[in-house]
């Protein structure tokens, strides 16, 4: 048994460092905000124009003018700041955001990512994903290791239209944690109860397994 979505988010939260400005994408990445370690202060950036995103509002206190990039009602925190969309992507483009966490349909062993379009099906658009992956200093992908058909999402080459090239630094899946290095996906940790053989079998891209792969600790 691999990790559930909450555990993937919990593992990624351990990557947060004090003082980071962080952009969390929709889905599993949003859950990371629930597991920020004690003593680590980060500022969440929402690309629709907010730094210092707070928790959801209490019932009855929702404000239609205050939403996050997922269109959810949110709140501000002491020290929050609003700005327009050009400045928002300006700070992203200029590399001011330390970490971006986003979901993906496919990741290649050279760091390419595909997460915005499935040809022939409804195309919803890339939103801010292409801007984020092109510019962020550090990109972690949170996703399931395989698709619903059981096929690997860690590939040697993406088959879907790309969102960005050679940009992903780390992938956290239900099976393990992988850095992307010149030789491919370097397995750093495996999920409790998941064998390295299972990871090998379910990884289509180049995989590097060192002798000292650790079991994930929560």
């Amino acid at each position, binding site marked *: 048994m691999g990790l559930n979505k909450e555990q993937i988010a919990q593992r990624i939260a351990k990557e947060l460092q004090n003082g980071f400005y962080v952009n969390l994408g929709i889905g599993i990445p949003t859950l990371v905000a629930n597991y920020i370690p004690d003593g680590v202060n980060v500022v969440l950036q929402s690309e629709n124009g907010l730094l210092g995103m707070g928790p959801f509002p*209490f019932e009855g*206190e929702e404000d239609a003018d205050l*939403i996050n990039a997922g*269109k959810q009602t949110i709140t501000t925190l002491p020290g929050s700041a*609003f*700005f327009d*969309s050009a400045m928002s992507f300006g700070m992203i*483009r200029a590399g001011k955001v330390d970490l971006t966490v986003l979901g993906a349909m496919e990741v290649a062993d050279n760091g390419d990512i595909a997460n915005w379009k499935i040809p022939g099906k*409804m195309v919803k658009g890339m939103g801010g994903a292409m801007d984020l992956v092109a510019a962020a200093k550090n990109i972690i992908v949170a996703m399931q290791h395989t698709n619903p058909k059981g096929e690997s999402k860690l590939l040697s080459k993406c088959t879907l239209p790309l969102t960005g090239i050679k940009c992903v630094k780390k992938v956290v899946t239900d099976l393990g944690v992988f850095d992307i290095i010149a030789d491919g996906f370097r397995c750093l940790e495996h999920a409790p109860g998941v064998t390295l053989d299972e990871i090998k079998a379910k990884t289509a891209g180049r995989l590097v397994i060192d002798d000292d792969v650790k079991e994930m600790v929560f």
Partner: protein
Amino acid sequence: MNKVVANADEAIKGIESGMTLMLGGFGLCGIPENCIAALVRKGVNNLTCISNNAGVDDFGIGLMLQQKQVKKMISSYVGENAEFERQLLSGELEVELIPQGTLATRCMASGYGMPAVYLLAGVGTEVAEGKEVRNFNGKDYLLEYAFDSDFAIVKAWKGDAQGNLVFKDTARNFNPMMAMAGKITIAEVEELVPVGELHPNEIHTPGIYVHHIFQGKDYEKRIEQRTTRKKN
């Protein structure tokens, strides 16, 4: 200097079929509700709309899609709209999807009088097809052109007769740079205040960019994803 018009119908009087419009807002947040309703009443069609999103089926730009007034949408994200999907798949609607930051910056370039900018987003993807690529300091960038639009329609929180605007919270989003980018800019505001009431320090968009302004009414301000937490 008095840029006040009576209402949305008067504000959009100059908009004709076939024009290119910019519409502010992110999702349904900060959209010009009154002007969209007036455009639906007027029935202009064959429009090209530049807007981050395309509304939902029965609200926002979705209302114009229902009436088949839109020929082409230029957006970054268009989910959450079944009629949009139907028109796209049937070929009735043309859609150009571009990265959100590129959309914002192409508006900004227009408002700052810059013909084009070099941007990172989309390098190596299908977004880059047909675009000039130039390398700066070892990195490739795409040449992206400033938008050209006939009218920009924005929604602000407060404004005055000189066209000065203040936006609220994340309802600011694309509104300020679209206000700067329109050949003619229409601003609808929740509250039209006397000139002098807005402190010069707090003005987000100076009135020079705004041509027509009016106090909107009956704002629905629909919430797409109402998310809350329980007390304790």
